């Protein structure tokens, strides 16, 4: 049930930002944008602006956290105070802590952590501007930051949400669609491995709707995966095809 009088989808079936139901937001990715970090990438997905970077593998502090058989992946999802309408306090919220955890769990399966025992990889995702779907865009860009830094990956991880807005199933929900829509299903995926590594849902969907939404999200992931690969190519394969 829509929670507001504003129409999110017009009579032509277009969404408030002019997109079709199965259309992703305009997405730009740049790899290798920071000079200090060991790997970094930047994404603009609609009005989302997100920077990801990591340091490592390096020694673990404090030492007793080190794992004997693999690297310890740490992850911090953090929002700039000016990234949202109402200024956000810099202290991590409960939402920030949950998202840091599920993002870490979404990325872990893609990394050959066993190559670097007793070390840690410290991954930072900075939300400079938030407009719906930041956890997914954060995963998409963080995976590229890891690739940029030469961390060996089983596959890139890509993430995209789908959901239900005013009775229609749509992909890649923006902020308004997320807040006023009926359901939101963020999903992370490794396309070559056919592996879903993040799945959450808010809202209400029948089982049948849910299956369709999962397929929409997977389709979105596949499109974004192409953009991911192109962004790597743009950085590393200057002047030639794949």
């Amino acid at each position: 049930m829509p929670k507001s009088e504003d129409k999110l989808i017009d009579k032509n079936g277009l969404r408030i930002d002019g997109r079709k139901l199965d259309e992703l937001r305009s997405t730009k990715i740049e790899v290798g944008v920071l000079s200090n970090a060991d790997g970094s990438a930047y994404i603009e997905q609609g009005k989302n602006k997100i920077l990801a970077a990591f340091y490592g593998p390096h020694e673990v502090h404090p030492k007793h956290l080190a794992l004997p058989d693999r690297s310890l992946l740490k992850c911090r999802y953090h929002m700039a105070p000016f990234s949202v309408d109402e200024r956000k306090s810099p202290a991590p919220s409960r939402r920030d802590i949950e998202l840091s955890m599920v993002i870490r769990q979404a990325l872990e399966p893609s990394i050959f952590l066993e190559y670097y025992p007793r070390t840690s990889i410290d991954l930072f995702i900075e939300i400079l501007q938030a407009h719906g779907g930041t956890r997914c865009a954060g995963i998409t860009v963080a995976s590229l930051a890891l690739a940029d830094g030469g961390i060996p990956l089983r596959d890139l991880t890509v993430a995209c949400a789908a959901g239900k807005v005013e009775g229609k199933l749509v992909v890649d929900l923006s902020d308004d669609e997320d807040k006023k829509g009926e359901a939101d299903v963020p999903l992370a995926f490794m396309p070559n491995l056919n592996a879903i590594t993040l799945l959450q849902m808010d809202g209400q969907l029948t089982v049948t709707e849910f299956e369709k939404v999962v397929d929409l999200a997977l389709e979105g992931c596949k499109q974004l995966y192409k953009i991911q690969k192109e962004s790597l190519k743009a950085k590393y394969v200057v002047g030639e095809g794949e």
Partner: protein
Amino acid sequence: MIIRIRQKQIAQLMSNGERLDGREFEKYREIKLEMGVIEKAEGSARILLGKTEVLVGVKIGVGTPFPDTPDKGVLTVNAELVPLASPMFEPGPPRENAIELARVVDRGIRESNAIDLEKLCLVPGKTVLVVFVDLYVLNYDGNLIDASAIAALAALLNAKMSKYEIEDGEVKVKPGYIQLPIQNYPIAVTFAEIDGKLIIDPSLEEEMVMDARLTITFEKDGKICAIQKGGTGQFTREQIVDVVKIAEGKSLEIRKLVVKD
């Protein structure tokens, strides 16, 4: 290393269709539920799910609404993994596991509109009732989400609140109590994936070796109202679709334990 060996044993058993405690893959441990155990709380329930024990208390107070929902009461779910429940828990502010637990239970209650929050508004934009749901884990033997979600629903159903009225702009408590307005009954069903196989209601030993976890919460009309994947493993689309169907049936069974017609 010990975990690796245990993992092999459990996987071995599972390849024969067996679990450590003899359960079938899609069978819950015994559920014992007791309501009204804390007289000082507006509502309470204590659950034993096998040896996992959770006490949930509901307190109701007066507060201010969120700016974007000025005509609705406030729901706050908080979880404490108190250290007597497990040698793995430590004192201090909630960490990511406790926060995830609280937020997953919160999502089920919130997204199913289990509490009619509009009935908890006293003065729009100024004064509303705040419902605190405190999940208090007393013994941890696996599957805290399902145990907590069931006990939280039971505690909400058990909750009675004072009658409030506004007189001259001040909140007055009237004599008598009324039921907290509950209009939906979300039930969370959790699976663990071990070595490619899926089992319901994982015990602590199974959680220690599982690759991933998947929780699906159903509301009373059979719609999904919350999902949470946990753990560092992965699922295929097909596994998820299968799990959702099994979970749907399970949620009906469990709901009957909590909600008596």
